[in-house]
């Protein structure tokens, strides 16, 4: 397995050094692993902090900037950051208006953010949390850890970021973040497994001629394996899974997200198929994003996220944003 790295132990630190060199508009603390927008804390604005394992770039560090996250905490590859990082981030972005933690529903992220919230409150920082759990491939029941948080994280961070930028109070920003999560569903497909730097080989075995349906973003296999399908067939499976669960009545935001190793040529083709199937089902499309946003290292494949929006959510989604990974209107 060939990778453009020095040694597995330093991949995250090396990436952060490179990010600092590329983005002088961010404050990148390589040693403590916290990425903060340069002008934080912004007076009167709720601070937005997210984080999670590395390997999902541009999530989350690439979404730090005006109109989106105030700070991000990258963990080791596919490993939650630690509470110390989250506490530093919260302290750096709190203007007195409080901090919202945006947490993907993975046990490690949840436990570490919970511990960090306790520590932050000890220091007098008002903290609210929103859990992102949009992945329909994982059934929610009493006996599981619940749905995973995947692509909807982008919509939650973007829309809540706009709400914070407008100066809305913490309870309102939190409520909007929750509404975005509850209005979003995702479904992922892998054409190949990814390889973590620490392991150096694919995390699961996916023979040629087969694909995995219902994958997450951590190299874990999906719920079902099938013989390779066409882009149109995959779009039908993904749209059906998402629409059946979401039952959208409003127009939707569409995220056709690459997992890291699938070229835009294929993603745009897949987007065309997604639109064909959505039109067949009478689902109106409000906005579309196609690209690599919530990736899984070098995994080939894609995920589809739909978020049904009302007028306010759409207005906040359209609001200006300026981050390394998402930028419009400014």
């Amino acid at each position, binding site marked *: 397995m060939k990778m453009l790295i020095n040694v*597995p132990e330093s991949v995250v630190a090396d990436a952060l050094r490179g990010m600092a060199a590329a983005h002088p508009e961010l404050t990148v603390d390589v040693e403590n692993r916290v990425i903060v927008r340069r002008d934080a804390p912004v007076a009167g604005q709720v601070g937005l902090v997210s984080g999670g*394992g590395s390997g999902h770039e541009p999530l989350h560090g690439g979404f730090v900037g005006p109109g989106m996250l105030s700070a991000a905490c990258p*963990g*080791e*590859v*596919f*490993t*939650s*950051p*630690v*509470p*110390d990082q989250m506490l530093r981030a919260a302290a750096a972005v709190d203007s007195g208006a409080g901090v919202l933690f945006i947490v993907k529903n*993975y*046990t*490690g992220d949840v*436990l*570490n953010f*919970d*511990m960090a919230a306790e520590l932050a409150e000890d220091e007098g920082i008002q903290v609210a949390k929103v859990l992102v759990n949009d992945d329909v491939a*994982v059934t929610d029941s009493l*006996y*599981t*850890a619940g749905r*995973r948080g995947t692509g909807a994280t982008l919509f939650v961070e973007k829309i809540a970021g706009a709400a914070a930028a407008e100066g809305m109070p913490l309870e309102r920003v939190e409520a909007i973040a929750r509404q975005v999560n509850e209005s979003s569903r995702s479904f992922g497909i892998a054409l190949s497994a990814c390889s*973590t730097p*620490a*392991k150096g080989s694919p*995390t*699961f075995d996916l023979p040629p001629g087969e694909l995995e349906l219902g994958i*997450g973003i*951590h*190299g*874990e*296999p999906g*719920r079902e394996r099938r013989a390779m399908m066409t882009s149109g067939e995959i779009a039908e499976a993904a749209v059906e899974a998402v629409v059946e669960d979401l039952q959208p009545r409003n127009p939707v935001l569409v995220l056709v997200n690459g997992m890291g190793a699938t070229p835009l040529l294929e993603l745009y083709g897949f987007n065309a198929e997604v639109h064909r199937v959505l039109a067949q089902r009478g689902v109106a499309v409000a906005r579309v994003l196609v690209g690599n946003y919530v990736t899984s290292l070098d995994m080939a494949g894609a995920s589809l996220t739909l978020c049904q929006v009302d007028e306010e959510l759409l207005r906040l989604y359209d609001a200006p944003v300026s981050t390394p990974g998402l930028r419009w209107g400014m």
Partner: protein
Amino acid sequence: MLDAAFFRRWMTVTAASVDREAERLTALDSPIGDADHGSNLQRGFRAVTAALEKEPPGTPGGVLTLAGRQLISTVGGASGPLYGTLLRRTGKALGDAGEVSAEQLAEALRAGVDAVMTLGGAAPGDKTMIDALVPAVDALGNSFTAARTAAEEGAVATTPLQARKGRASYLGERSIGHQDPGATSAALLIAGLVEAAGE
């Protein structure tokens, strides 16, 4: 009686066995997790060893709470808070005593395991570290060796189970047939007691 030196040895020999077994733990974590359990715990226990060398606490409770804090600050993932809570709560339960009996250790470790179950929401049979820790604590009243055997058997017994907690639970039935990496590393921690005691 067990003094602070015994507890430092316990942590040091555990760090050494995690070092030795890191690749195996990561391999176990690959089909059902995300292939990092070994490297994460290795990073954490190296930090524990370094911290204990730098400022060696004088009490058994002090050793374990320091170790737990280090794990929370360095491991990340679910293992950091879970292992960190296990050691911190066990250490807190031991209090300020300069020496503790094996019975006191067993009692404190049970408090630590209870705290882990509360934090992670896992019960025996969910295919987690709890499946090694609970039988180990039950057997600890007999001897360290009995606890080691119970933990190892508990870890092996996770293989046919379907995961109901943590990342492996997202695989549903596909988690069956793989030994749980968390239960495996928990067995290493318990085995460290035997080595630390020189049994």
